[in-house]
């Protein structure tokens, strides 16, 4: 009885807080916008979706979001892998110290940290001042309100989500395996690609999903660090809801965003399941 209740609990949670809200969003996306309370009609119409799929601007925005999120994910992976690898190879005492340092920024409000980057990156901020003082440039470089700033913001904010799962898989890995590969004739780099990388893959996949998914829908970072013309899907979603008050269109944007995210996850999971069956 208790067993069943405990197993049912997470499903119930998902049902109430994910599936039910999604059903509501889906329902709204299939309505017409009206000026009323709530601002959508009780009727059904595919208009929002047809509009979304025919207007090029939305397609471009989705694509830009995918590219930005993928870029930030790649940046996180490039930065996070060596860090996670390094931490996993430290003595246990140093390890927990370093992990604490990774998690420490979470103790400060997310908004504050993004504001801090604004301070660092604006025309007379710390980075530009340093560059000018070093004589690298004589005029401030435009960092703020560029795609570069968004990349930096995304990579900075989501880096821990990459490092932690990577660390978890790398820490469990038997170092003898790498030595065995070297013993059998693999150079250091060969041993990395033959052994370390494939065994770290579950961590890489988990880390990439944990960064890519929230980065796709990220609203605050592009809003604060990006320029007014750098339209990303999170921003569009926000604007459709709160500025245009077009709930059905906003819901349709959300539904398509979700589909964009669910498809790669399902593919990855199928790939992983096949990987574990041992038919490679």
């Amino acid at each position: 009885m208790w067993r069943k209740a405990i197993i049912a609990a997470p499903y119930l949670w998902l049902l109430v807080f994910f599936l039910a809200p999604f059903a509501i969003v889906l329902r709204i996306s299939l309505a017409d916008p009206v000026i009323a309370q709530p601002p959508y009609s009780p009727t059904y119409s595919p208009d929002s979706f047809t509009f979304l799929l025919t207007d090029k601007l939305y397609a471009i925005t989705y694509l830009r979001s995918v590219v930005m999120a993928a870029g930030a994910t790649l940046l996180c992976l490039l930065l996070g892998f060596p860090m996670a690898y390094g931490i996993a190879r430290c003595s246990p005492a140093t390890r927990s110290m370093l992990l604490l340092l990774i998690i420490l920024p979470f103790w400060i409000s997310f908004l504050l940290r993004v504001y801090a980057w604004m301070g660092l990156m604006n025309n007379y901020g710390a980075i530009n001042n340093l560059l000018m003082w070093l004589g690298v440039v004589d005029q401030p470089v435009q960092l703020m309100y560029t795609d570069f700033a968004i990349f930096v913001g995304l990579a900075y904010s989501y880096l821990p989500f990459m490092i932690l799962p990577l660390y978890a898989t790398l820490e469990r890995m038997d170092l003898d395996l790498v030595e065995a590969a070297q013993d059998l004739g693999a150079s250091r780099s060969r041993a990395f690609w033959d052994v370390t990388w494939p065994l770290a893959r579950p961590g890489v996949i988990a880390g990439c999903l944990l960064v890519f998914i929230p980065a796709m829908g990220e609203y605050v970072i592009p809003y604060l660090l990006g320029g007014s013309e750098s339209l990303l899907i999170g921003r569009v979603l926000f604007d459709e809801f709160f500025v245009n008050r077009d709930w059905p269109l906003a819901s349709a944007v959300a539904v398509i965003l979700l589909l964009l995210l669910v498809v790669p996850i399902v593919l990855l999971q199928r790939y992983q399941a096949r990987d574990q069956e041992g038919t490679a």
Partner: protein
Amino acid sequence: MKDFIRIRGLSKKFGNFLAVDNVDLDIERGELFSILGGSGCGKTTLLRMLAGFELPTSGTIEIDGVDVTNQPPYERHVNMMFQSYAVFPHMTVEKNIGYGLRKERMPRPEIAKRVDEMLELVQLQELRSRKPDQLSGGQRQRVALARALIKQPKVLLLDEPLAALDKKLRERTQFELMNIQDELGITFVVVTHDQEEAMTLSSRIAVMDRGQFRQIGTPKEIYEFPSNRFVAEFIGTINTFRGHVAAKEEDSISVDSSEAGVTLTALGKQLVEEGQEIEIAIRPEKIFISKEKPDDGDAVCLPGVVDDLGYRGNRSLYRIRLESGKIVQVSSQNRRRSVTRFLEWDDRVWISWRPRSAVVLLD
């Protein structure tokens, strides 16, 4: 015969800790050589230097006439079987075994042929497409062995090859290992803490302690003629009697030992001085036990009382308390089938041994 592996003045320091201390060692081609010692004695460090995972602080390693001291592991014709087996979990049995050849860029058909041979050698043909997590410990061990052997190394290093197996399987695998070694003629260097394993497997054993070899010899030499107290006590059980050399004769010595309560005779080829403090050591199975004083003029005979006894099936173990209070361990074969005990607690008995069975230990 020319020495196949020559180690000269090899040392390894980790910080201030001297793991291997100025070691010399020669191993012949085709030997099954064991390095035996307790944990932290430096045996694994020595093995890792042979494999190339650790660089020596000083000294040289030559294999088949080539100085390999500073060669990285992937350039040495040496392969290793790890204690954890280190079988690649993401590769099938076949892929694991063929890994070393793929790194050599050997043509595929040739690899397939050699993998087949190896699978046959370790009898894993049916399991070729399994992944390691679908194998038992013994099967994983054989994958690791085949994987290390497929490159036909000059030397195969085995780090505690049987430690992870249960007792029955360990005994069977010991003989398998010996057969494979015999068949292929590859020089095996085994590191182990298990003296029984070392005794069964090896053509020669080096007993290691605190970074140095205490004795190198055949299993028989090590067991029957330990050259010092450490080796005598590390291998098997041994009884020791401390005493002073009372007299030296042609080829024997008399030793006054208060522990024994009598004067002990031992064959003493060793260089001992009169009055020198030495120890006479005797293995439990070299001691006879009887109710009456044995009628043998040469034998060393001591009276005692049965302090404790244990039945082990094939043999019985006795702890005999001498008059001095010293406890002597005696092991005797249970040749006859019987339900009743030959001896009981507190029985008065005589223990005796031939002088030639005892060993003189100087340190």
